[in-house]
């Protein structure tokens, strides 16, 4: 990363929209439907509110020690042993989450686009492009997300306009018939899974962000827009398929995209439209590799080198092909551990500030 260049807050907002949805098609949607069933809508609303709490952890940590990235903040806050331990946990957690993401993204591509090609060549090709993007640095990832967001918006608008006629509000019923604990559990899953990838943005120190006073406001608006998008998409899928049918499908998004017909003669475009679902994982993995690289540099005290990125990419692909992680619940403890570390950091910073002020 060019140390002198500053990042635009709008670019970071574009990047964050992909991060919120990193796990959307590869598990988040399915797990919410399977837990909350017909009350998934309430889970997402509760989850969005819980997400605000996590978002404010991000804001607080971002505002503290403005010139340092997350690893430097941990180093400055905790004793060396604990800070190294926390950084190692963060690296391992993001490694596991990235492996899950890569494997399931490859599965998604295999299932929908490249049926006759096995997972291994798909994963390798995907990771080669991701590695190339990671080598180019975080600013290139932000610029790429800036380009992809316009393609994504275009595809989303086409899909929505073509599908809205198929929706039947009666399919959303029944409401509030499931165990409230399950609805709440679904909400927590939504909050944890959608916010955890966002914490990777703490890699960028606040003083490297242009016009950083407005940054917080922009991020808040982006979060609300993303939550609304998720709610609208959920309503669209449930109102077309009903929750019982949605619950048995692996990729309900693709099933509804199969119905898209533009002007009654442009049909069978679900392969093209499904690209909007792949951008999220692509951007997440590029940023995750950079995040892990920075973590390793910090903990091992080595010089920044592209070879580390090759090493991380190889480790991720081996991990993903060896572990075959297909259940998103496996990644939840790792995501929670990431959130707990950030929460500890927040608490310790608060305590330090309090003791400093009292002295």
């Amino acid at each position: 990363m060019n140390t002198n260049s500053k990042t635009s807050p709008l670019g970071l907002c574009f990047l964050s929209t992909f991060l919120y949805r990193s796990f959307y098609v590869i598990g988040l949607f399915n797990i919410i439907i399977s837990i909350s069933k017909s009350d998934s809508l309430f889970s997402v609303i509760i989850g969005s509110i819980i997400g605000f709490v996590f978002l404010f952890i991000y804001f607080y940590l971002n505002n503290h020690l403005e010139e340092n990235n997350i690893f430097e903040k941990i180093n400055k806050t905790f004793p060396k042993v604990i800070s190294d331990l926390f950084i190692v946990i963060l690296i391992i957690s993001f490694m596991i989450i990235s492996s899950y993401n890569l494997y399931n993204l490859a599965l998604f591509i295999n299932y929908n686009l490249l049926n006759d090609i096995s997972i291994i060549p798909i994963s390798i090709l995907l990771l080669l492009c991701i590695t190339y993007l990671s080598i180019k640095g975080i600013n290139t990832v932000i610029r790429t997300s800036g380009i992809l967001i316009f393609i994504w918006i275009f595809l989303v608008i086409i899909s929505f306009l073509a599908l809205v006629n198929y929706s039947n509000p009666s399919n959303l019923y029944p409401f509030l018939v499931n165990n409230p604990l399950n609805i709440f559990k679904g909400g927590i899953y939504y909050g944890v899974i959608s916010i955890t990838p966002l914490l990777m943005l703490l890699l960028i120190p606040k003083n490297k962000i242009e016009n950083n006073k407005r940054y917080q406001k922009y991020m808040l608006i982006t979060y609300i827009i993303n939550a609304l998008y998720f709610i609208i998409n959920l309503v669209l899928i449930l109102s077309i398929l009903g929750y019982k049918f949605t619950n048995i499908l692996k990729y309900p998004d693709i099933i509804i995209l199969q119905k898209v017909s533009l002007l009654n003669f442009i049909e069978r475009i679900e392969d093209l439209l499904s690209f909007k679902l792949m951008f999220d994982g692509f951007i997440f993995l590029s940023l995750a590799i950079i995040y892990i690289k920075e973590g390793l540099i910090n903990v091992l005290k080595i010089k920044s080198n592209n070879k580390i990125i090759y090493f991380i990419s190889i480790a991720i692909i081996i991990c993903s092909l060896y572990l075959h992680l297909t259940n998103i619940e496996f990644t939840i403890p790792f995501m929670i551990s990431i959130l707990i570390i950030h929460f500890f950091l927040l608490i310790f910073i608060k305590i330090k500030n309090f003791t400093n002020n009292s002295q």
Partner: protein
Amino acid sequence: MKILKLLIIILLSFSMTGCVSYMELNELGIIDMIVIDKNNDNYIVTINMLIPNQDDLENKEVYTASNISIDECLNDFYLKTNKKISFTHLELMALTSNIKQQEYDEIINLFLNRVDARNTFSTIIVDEPSNIVDYKAKDINELININSEEYGLVSIKQFDSIIKDILEMNISYIPKISFKDSPSILGYQSVYSSNSDLSKEESLGFNFITNQIKQSKFNSNNMGFKIDTSNTIITVNKNEININITSTYQITSNNSNTQDEHKIQKIYEDEINNYINDFINKNQNNYFLSLIEKYQNNYYKKNQKINIKYNITFNSTRINNSNIKGGFHEY
């Protein structure tokens, strides 16, 4: 960096251009119609494989296989054809009345797990499975489509909506077509939890309840009616179901002495009322039960036996033919 770029270019050139799992288009056996029947313990599966050539773009070959499962039947086709079976362009699935609940489960599992199958193909019930292969899938679909838009007896039933119906109501209604002499639509047939044929009146009643009437025509008391628009709204309150039908209609012929507007409207509404009552009385009330389960879930859970009460109301508007451009003036 240069090595990585080179590696990407080499790998992309080998994979993205189709070198991996390379297959010519003429090696694919594109299926546009599948017919599934069951005789004793064996399935009889017939497929219509499109093999276009320079002389005949609609050239096709028909294969039939019989085995204990549909999957085995599909495997048996590879004993007869050198093409890879592909369901990507499947347009029509025809099932016979011999297909029962267990077989439906197998068919649903098969098509949900096949990555090459889109679940948006239409499904019909046939009485003579051997004759259907003489017709084109798109012609049969068009037959149902035209009927739906002009007469309203049946509507296209896509496979995914059958799965949805079965999951939500344990019953689905599929258009039934006879192929004895020439294709002829008979109405709907209920499948899964009960297999029974619906008469034309019951089929129309079902379409009214499920708001699938686009246009329709019928005769009553020597009068011909044409429905131009129809919209059904159902509200559920515990075990009470209110069906409100808002429609516009015109009279196409009047051979009776009735000229009174109120009487004409009553004849019109009574006829639709009869269709709906025919459907409700002669068929299981699974559809209404599923509505109560959906909208009044707590009431549904608390009550073991639900005595369903229903009420049909109409909001009908007659359009005079003289108001219609090009219509005949009646005096």
